[in-house]
């Protein structure tokens, strides 16, 4: 067994998930493939959204995959870092907006 929870070469084995439950695995990969097709949003735009979300959910496999995917699509590093900031801003905003709860509670409990 690997001493690390994350091994970059495990990304290549992602498809093996279907080995233990073919039906659900197939449904997932079909869905996944469909989601990233050209639609109302371009595949390029979806790739940048995926990159931002990869950072927010802190998935190293996804970060590797969507950095590479962006490079393939000719997405620039300026676009990539802005997408990561958009994700980071939402994530930090999500923390900070809870400050309102803290303030509400503080005010309620204070004389």
């Amino acid at each position: 067994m690997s001493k690390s929870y994350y091994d970059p070469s495990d990304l290549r084995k992602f498809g093996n998930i279907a080995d233990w439950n073919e039906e659900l695995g197939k449904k997932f990969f079909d869905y996944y493939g469909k989601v990233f097709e050209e639609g109302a949003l371009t595949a390029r735009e979806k790739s940048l959204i995926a990159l931002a979300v990869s950072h927010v959910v802190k998935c190293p496999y996804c970060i590797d995959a969507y950095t590479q995917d962006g490079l393939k699509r000719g997405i620039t590093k300026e676009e990539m870092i802005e997408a990561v900031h958009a994700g980071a801003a939402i994530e930090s905003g999500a923390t900070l907006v809870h400050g309102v709860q803290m303030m509400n509670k503080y005010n309620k409990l204070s004389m």
Partner: protein
Amino acid sequence: MLIKSLKKRENELANARKQLKILSEGIFETGELPMFSAQLEAVNKSVLKPKTLEILQINVGYMCNQVCEHCHVDAGPDRKEIMTRETMQQCLDVIKKTGAHTLDLTGGAPEMNPDFRWFVVEATKIGVKDFIVRSNLTIITANKKYYDLPEFFKKHNIHVISSMPHWTKGKTDKQRGNGVFNASIKALKMLNDVGYGMPGSKLKLDLVYNPSGAFLPGDQAALESDFKKGLLSDFDIQFHQLFSITNLPISRFLDYLIASDNYNDYMYNLVEAFNPAAVENVMCTNTLSVSWDGWLYDCDFNQMLELKVKSSVQHISQFNKEALSNRTICISQHCYGCTAGAGSSCQGTVT
């Protein structure tokens, strides 16, 4: 940024045999990944055989004004291999009788060959349907003596195909050297000014895109659309088609892959993207590559790996269509580069 070729630096990867050895050991030797020959067998193609010869690609020399990081030719200003007029004459004699509809001049920078213009004028007289010159663009602005190339190309109805790794400066200069982007933009403007690449123009100007790093090219049509938008809005430049080409793991790109610890992952990407449909149309089946000294190869990549055609006829001076059409194409693991995804050739995707 590179300034000298692998050959000049006496790097071991300048040696074709060393490259072929690397491509046959490691993950391929252990069986972790299948050899290209085994992959062909798995799709019932035990060997690759040529079809009708359509394209004669002539490498008129390895000298170039640029030293690009990914160059499979290991070209540069220090390369002295240049085709002589005598060999050019032998090529002309062959062009007359092959029936190939496309003549494709490459290098190095083909324009740096002192007999380049003579060759173009003579070859034009033969009247091939599509006469391509692969120009790196910067050569046009490199020296006064090249400034009239757009007019020269126009006069002889040359189909210009030029390299452009990105529509932004940073990526282009990283791969091809500082200043290359601005010089390329200037050259593209000069070509547009004489009519090349304009909508509806018969003066064909196509661009070649190849990734600036250890990743495969994305969808050719999507990239073309982004290139067109970027070059038009930022620089008012137009072109016809974009050909996306996969970098093959040989020469300077192989050196880069190994040095950056990307070799294994890149080979995995190529093998996983193997597309049997691309095998049907790989360019070695309709192309013949001629080196500066007149030897014949299945493609420009095999030329750099010094894999001469497996035929009783190996030199342009002995050209025999029949003998060559019966040959078996030489393959190694670099061939995965032409069969990945939508396939890759000097004319872009093949599926």
